[in-house]
């Protein structure tokens, strides 16, 4: 019983972490059809920036917000300078973002050094709670809540705001939207900024679980893609569902069949690819 409770919570927390990374990726792709390979590099930069602020005594949550903003600014520069001309060309954006992640990775190494860092959770969440026989770190529980709130917030935003409507319409039929006189390009900027912001915040929020070290971005990238394959590229609901599925299957897979540890992330991916290649909530 404790085994199942602990792993369910663990799977949800891990899924929450994955959602923070994959949500930005899928948002950006959904509207703009840009595959941002540098998304996990944004995550890493966000973690480092957040750590720098925390070292100066800034509060954890504030640091996360500022890190998100910093990465959003980085995202703006990246989009403006490199991507905005090519957002229609899927292949080109993939290639561009590969190069950008190379540069970001190396510059991060130059700026923050090679020593692996630990990201301390905020003081009020630095303890563990006891739920029956299960001991669980309170920060991980908080991450579950945060990811649910983020997902809800994004969903509400898409559903009930003007900009959200523009985004939903743009995903459906960008040309028609332009024809109606809507400034779709401005929405693109906003979405890219939002995606970068999510990655930056995610970097610090996920830091207590993943740490921050050179190469983390390369290790998280396949995970992010596993989530969007399962959930469906471009769908926010899909990213949420995908991260929960991948998180839980990964956790229970490793807990029950540890000898298959290398494949637990990709087991749901394989199943989806075989049965429903567009993902749970994807189209086409």
């Amino acid at each position, binding site marked *: 019983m404790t*085994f199942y409770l602990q792993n369910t919570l*663990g799977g949800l927390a*891990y899924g929450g972490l994955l959602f923070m990374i994959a949500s930005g990726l899928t948002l950006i792709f959904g509207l703009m059809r840009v595959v941002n390979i540098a998304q996990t590099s944004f995550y890493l930069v966000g973690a480092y920036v957040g750590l720098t602020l925390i070292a100066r005594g800034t509060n954890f949550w504030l640091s996360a917000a500022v890190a998100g903003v910093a990465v959003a600014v980085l995202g703006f520069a990246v989009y403006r300078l490199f991507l905005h001309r090519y957002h229609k060309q899927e292949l080109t954006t993939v290639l561009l973002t590969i190069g950008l992640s190379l540069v970001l990775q190396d510059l991060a190494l130059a700026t923050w050094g090679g020593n*692996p860092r*630990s990201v*301390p959770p905020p003081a009020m969440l630095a303890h563990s709670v006891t739920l029956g026989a299960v001991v669980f770190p309170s920060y991980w529980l908080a991450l579950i809540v945060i990811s649910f709130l983020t997902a809800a917030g994004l969903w509400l935003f898409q559903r009930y705001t003007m900009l959200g409507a523009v985004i939903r319409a743009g995903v459906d039929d960008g040309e028609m939207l332009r024809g109606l006189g809507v400034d779709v390009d401005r929405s693109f900027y906003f979405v890219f900024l939002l995606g970068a912001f999510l990655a930056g915040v995610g970097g610090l929020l996920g830091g207590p679980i993943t740490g921050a070290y050179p190469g983390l971005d390369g*290790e998280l990238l396949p995970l992010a893609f596993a989530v969007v394959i399962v959930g469906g590229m471009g769908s926010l609901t899909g990213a949420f569902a995908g991260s929960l599925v991948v998180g839980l299957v990964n*956790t229970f897979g490793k807990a029950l069949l540890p000898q298959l540890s290398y494949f637990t992330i990709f087991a749901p991916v394989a199943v989806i690819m075989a049965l429903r290649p567009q993902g749970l909530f994807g189209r086409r």
Partner: protein
Amino acid sequence: MRKGKWIALLLAAMLLLTACSTAGKPAGTQTPGQTVAPPTPFKLGLLIPLTGVFAAPGKYMQEGVQLLLQESDNKFAGRPVEVVTADSQGNPQAALTQARKLVEQDKVDAIIGPLSAAEGNALVQYLDGQQMPTVYPIVSSDDLTQRTIPKYIVRTGWTSSQTTMPFGEYAYKTLGYKKVATISYDFSFGWESVGGFVQTFQEAGGKVVKELWPPLNETNYQPYLSQIPKDVDAVFVSFSGSAAIQFVQQYKQFGLGKPLIAQGNTVDESTLQATGPSAVGVVTPLHYSAALDNPANKKFVADYEKAFGHGPAYYAEGSYVGAMVLKKALESLNGKSDDHAALVKAMKAVNLTDAPRGPVKMDEYGNPIQNVYIRKVEDVGGKLQNTVIYTYPNVSQFWSYDPKTFLAHPVFSRSYPTVK
């Protein structure tokens, strides 16, 4: 389209620059037949990761060598030392390419490095084939000084099981643990660390109830922690780098409540401060600790902090001692380095009494016989350190086993020793 031309021009300029930078390096061989050496420089190749996941330990290795050179006035046996650093990127293929560069292009006289077991294994055939005297100060793959011994590579560090074999006994007899679970990252260093522990722990009478092997790049250990039986007395682990930080922290967070014991570099000074309070109380074996209380080490640590602004880690002490061995060997040959076989022989005959880790003597297989310290992580004045609580003197890579008997068994792996 003008831009295309500019790019091509830029690239051509870079390639030209590259060609000039490498073409201009003179070959540094000595002409044979020189009896008294007017100090021709001694070219030392340093093959370490400077980029990639292992950049941090690589930096420590570089600093260790730099410190020894500083203390030696940059001279080995009267010859000025020229260091050529090559970035192995922590990857065996890149390490091999850079080794070729050091040997064939830069024509170094000796090499110190690399870092990881995979790189170390991959380089053996080439370095032996080229007869390049090499010091392995960190690579601890057991078999390199057991069943398949290279001719030109001298190991000045340790074998992975050299420290954990005495520790298995210590855990049972001194710490009183009867039932243990093990978790280690899934590659040869982890297998050998756990293997040594399990071998002696079981022989002493202990029981290993579970062995887990998370993948190398895992960041989330919760699923593995959930599989540990509640009735163990302790958990033995082996991790390093970022994995060590995350594991030790998560171990505390998931509140198993049982003592954590580990292979020494899991709480290495390079990651100990980042790991934080979760590490306090962890007991580990290693052939070194920065908190070791002997005059040579006290001086080493003080000089290191003065030179680099932070304390040493086992990687730094490793390369420092490796360079010491090379230096002493050269001194015993009066600085002659063109007879590679003689240099290797001299290195294997080195007997150090003033290394930071204590006395070091080579066994006939080419591995050091040295002290193994049992350390406990303690918070001293707000800073974490590995306080030495017990010393096993003069431990060889075979522990208390007869070498022939030991070698008759297979190398420690995931499946050996079998858990009874």
